[in-house]
């Protein structure tokens, strides 16, 4: 066998004129370049004759290097291929400036968020407690540098609050406040916060003292919290629309350490409350709500209403204990005798299963549902990506056309034979994630003479089974026929309704109804998700305002840098206005 070694190596040289660097810096640059993958050899030196001789020994003395003057900096890089070498040369400036770490013994107090973020590059929060007149601008500056904001200041206008929260939401950032007194993020208290044990309960609160009380009570009861997120008292007003609360609920619902969520607030606007209840229901976690003084609606799966702040804390702790021991445990309560066991039937049900006998109706249902659900699986999907992998097993939202050839081999069409659909209904009911089953019932000549007589008992059994399991299940039937059909359409409808089904006679109406129901079960915050790293990264804070907050963060051993803040432009409104316009 012929053996040959084939190496293709490329050398490129960059000459920088008039650049003086200390030789130690050059050696570090050389090492930095040599560490890059694919780089074989590097020479970084000033163009003196002695240095050129060294380059020659290592075969790096290219023609350009040879002609360099003693004041010129030669950077020669050898690598596998051209792309690698070019890539390496682009890293020179990055490597040269990479060294800016904070200097020890530095006692300089920065005067701006920009300077502070250079001194504490890991800072992820800005705590703002300057006078209200200036607070929105400081918060805006914090968002400009992609920091979350804890806005302690009050007297911030509602318009500013909305603008700040919208901007934050668009960047995946949180603005707690204005007038936010308390938060605990990753074990560190911001503003006023009690020393609370870490544990499995996440808290969202529009009231600072409410948050303090609930977190302290959870601690007293022996449990602890993951995070306590403040929102500011106005967050749940109709105008602000609970932006921060929605972000926080969404964040805690995704936080793997949070097992139970407590949501507390003064009574919110009705529309906001409804929206939050749907969102809480979709969180996939038990949510305990204390909207102080709010008359809660009928039972909602997954949500438990607490009477008081103490009650909220106690219910949360009991749920955690219930989950760990599997049996109800009484929580010692010094304030209220809590005897009841929390009934937290966590509603996981959120999916649709459509079991059609008519192919065109199934197809139209898929089309209409596009307005409501991003993904629906099917044996005949609109998009091949959502083809059901196993026809016998539904997943997520699914619509199957049981009249399709794949299902009718060796048996009658489901318009004549209900057995396959009845089996499938039973199958779907066993899945706790199913919230709604949609069926079509085709009447007319040639069809089954009395389909409701077989389907209605199956529907009734399914609804009972779900109810016994503490689950919400809804069954919607679309009856397709005329009053002159042999099956007696009115009687068919009556049988189905008596069994507990919701009946429609218009396909689009039926499907839109289904879509709306599912949309509310699959509620999202409607906002860009805030990264989970917000919660699990070590807290590093830029504090703008009250010095006591810096001291308190230092006591908690959080990284903090205090900004020696002064009113911008010395408080000169004309100049401040110009600066503000220049920032737009």
């Amino acid at each position, binding site marked *: 066998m012929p053996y040959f070694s084939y190496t293709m190596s490329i050398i490129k040289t960059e000459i920088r004129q008039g650049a003086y660097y200390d030789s130690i810096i050059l050696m570090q640059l050389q090492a930095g370049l040599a560490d890059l993958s694919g780089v074989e050899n590097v020479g970084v030196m000033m163009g003196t004759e002695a240095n050129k001789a060294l380059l020659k020994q290592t075969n790096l003395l290219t023609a350009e290097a040879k002609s360099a003057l003693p004041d010129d900096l030669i950077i020669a890089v050898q690598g596998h291929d051209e792309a690698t070498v070019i890539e390496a040369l682009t890293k020179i400036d990055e490597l040269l400036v990479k060294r*800016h770490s904070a200097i020890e013994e530095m006692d300089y107090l920065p005067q701006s968020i*920009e300077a502070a973020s250079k001194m504490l590059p890991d800072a992820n929060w800005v705590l703002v407690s300057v006078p209200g007149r200036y607070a929105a601008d400081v918060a805006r500056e914090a968002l400009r540098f992609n920091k979350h904001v804890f806005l302690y200041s009050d007297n911030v206008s509602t318009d500013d609050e909305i603008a700040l929260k919208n901007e934050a939401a668009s960047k995946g950032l949180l603005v707690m406040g204005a007038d936010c007194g308390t938060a605990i993020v990753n074990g560190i208290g911001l503003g006023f916060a009690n020393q609370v044990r870490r544990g499995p309960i996440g808290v969202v609160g529009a009231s600072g003292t409410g948050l303090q009380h609930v977190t302290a009570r959870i601690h007293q009861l022996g449990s602890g919290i993951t995070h306590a997120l403040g929102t500011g008292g106005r967050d749940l007003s109709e105008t602000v629309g609970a932006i921060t609360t929605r972000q926080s609920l969404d964040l805690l619902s995704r936080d793997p350490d949070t097992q139970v969520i407590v949501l507390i607030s003064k009574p919110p606007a009705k529309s906001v409350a409804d929206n939050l209840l749907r969102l809480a229901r979709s969180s996939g976690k038990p949510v305990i709500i204390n909207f102080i003084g709010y008359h809660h609606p009928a039972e909602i799966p997954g949500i438990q209403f607490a009477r008081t702040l103490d009650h909220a804390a106690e219910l949360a702790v009991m749920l955690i204990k219930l989950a760990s021991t599997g049996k109800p445990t009484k929580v010692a309560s010094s304030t209220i005798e809590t005897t009841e066991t929390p009934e937290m039937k966590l509603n996981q049900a959120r999916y649709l299963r459509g079991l059609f006998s008519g192919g065109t109706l199934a197809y139209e249902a898929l089309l209409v549902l596009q307005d409501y659900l991003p993904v629906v699986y099917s044996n005949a999907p609109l998009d091949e990506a959502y083809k059901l992998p196993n026809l016998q097993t539904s997943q997520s939202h699914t619509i199957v056309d049981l009249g399709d050839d794949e299902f009718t081999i060796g048996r009658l069409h489901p318009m004549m034979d209900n057995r396959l659909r009845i089996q499938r209904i039973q199958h779907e009911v066993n899945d706790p994630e199913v919230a709604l089953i949609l069926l079509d019932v085709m009447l007319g000549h040639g069809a089954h003479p009395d389909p409701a007589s077989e389907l209605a008992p199956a529907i009734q059994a399914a609804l009972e089974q779900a109810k016994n399991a503490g689950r919400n299940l809804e069954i919607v039937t679309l009856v397709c026929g005329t009053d002159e059909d042999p099956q007696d359409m009115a009687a068919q409808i009556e049988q189905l309704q008596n069994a507990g089904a919701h009946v429609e006679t218009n396909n689009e109406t039926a499907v839109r109804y289904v879509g709306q129901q599912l949309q509310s079960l699959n509620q999202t915050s409607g906002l860009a998700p805030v990264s989970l790293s917000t919660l699990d990264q070590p807290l590093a804070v830029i504090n703008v305002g009250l010095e006591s907050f810096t001291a308190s963060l230092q006591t908690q051993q959080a990284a903090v840098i205090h900004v020696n803040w*002064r009113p911008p432009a010395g408080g000169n409104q004309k100049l401040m206005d*110009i600066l503000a316009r220049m920032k737009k």
Partner: protein
Amino acid sequence: MNIEQANQQAVDRMMEARPVLVGIGTARDVIPGMQDNLLLHAGAPITWERASGPMRGAITGALILEGKASSEAEAQQLVESGEIKLEPCHHHNAVGPMAGATSASMAVYIIEDKTYGGMAYSNLNEGYGKVLRYGAYSEEVISRLTWMNETMAPVLKAAIEASGGIDIKALLAEALHMGDEGHNRNKAGSILFLKALAPHIARTCGDSNVAGDVLQAIGDNALSVLNPVMAAGKAMADAAHGIEGSTIVSTMARNGTDFGIRVSGLGDQWFTAPVATPQGLYFPNFSADDASGDIGDSTITETVGIGGFAMAAAPAIVTFVSGTPKDAINTTMEMYEINFAEHKYFTMPQLDFRGTPTGIDIRKVIETGITPRVNTGIAHKEAGVGQIGAGLVRPPMACFEQALIAYAEKYGI
């Protein structure tokens, strides 16, 4: 192009300019627009009436050197009659320390920006004591200027030309690592300058006594490199000037009466306000009562990211204000607040080789209320006395306020 992009372009040009000292010429031959009846001075435009003592003294001295006057009264008459015109150095691609008086027959350093092709000029440094730049015009001052013009300048010219040019940017970057800040402390830079010149002086100057005198003059004067450094600064600042939309300061200069700034995106308009008096240390028998107002074009160094901005690199300077090395670092840290960038080539070992604060942004000055910190020499308020100390000073905030308002008007903000 938005403000950020315009400023980025301005500071990139400021940092990428490569000023090289390429020669020496006579002002009337090389400085654009120079005339025999024209005197250049530091700072923004000034009249005799408003000129400070040191400025009047320097004008008098320059006119004596030119053989046009023999006393301050004669000088005043020439200037007030309009027979002799006064214009800022900055209007002629030039800069000068303290009074900055530059007349037609004076020798000047020639700086060429090898990146963008700009040219800049500065007179030669006289050393310490009674010197023209501080308003002294006695016979010894004039005879020293004559020696510099007639003896030193030709020797330096031959040496610089023989060297092929001295890269002032590289020299500055190295000096910053040797305890200099490039404005008030130029000990290392002047030695590097001497090192660069010495072999060429030895080779090109036929008279070893003259060579010895020139080498000694350069070596004894720890400020000998200041003037080429200032001209280099002028070249860097000019490269950054005239970028549409930029809020970067491209000139800071003092005429002893007013502090003046110009802004890259605001054309050649000066924004001026009365100068402050520097705070610092005084030579024996002098005090703050004797001090003139802040004067000189040397603030071009701070304009391009050295001088007071690089204070962390030159802790020895803080003794001027009884400070500690920590104060030196804090000075530079404070300047980061109002500058747009960190210098790519000028770095400071004391800050782990972080780049110096570069490109004063008028927005940040107004927003933070922090004005630039300048290291400066202090002149006696009366003409003819000279330097009486050195210290720190800041420009008046009003210059920046006017500039911001003018910017808002020009750009319809």
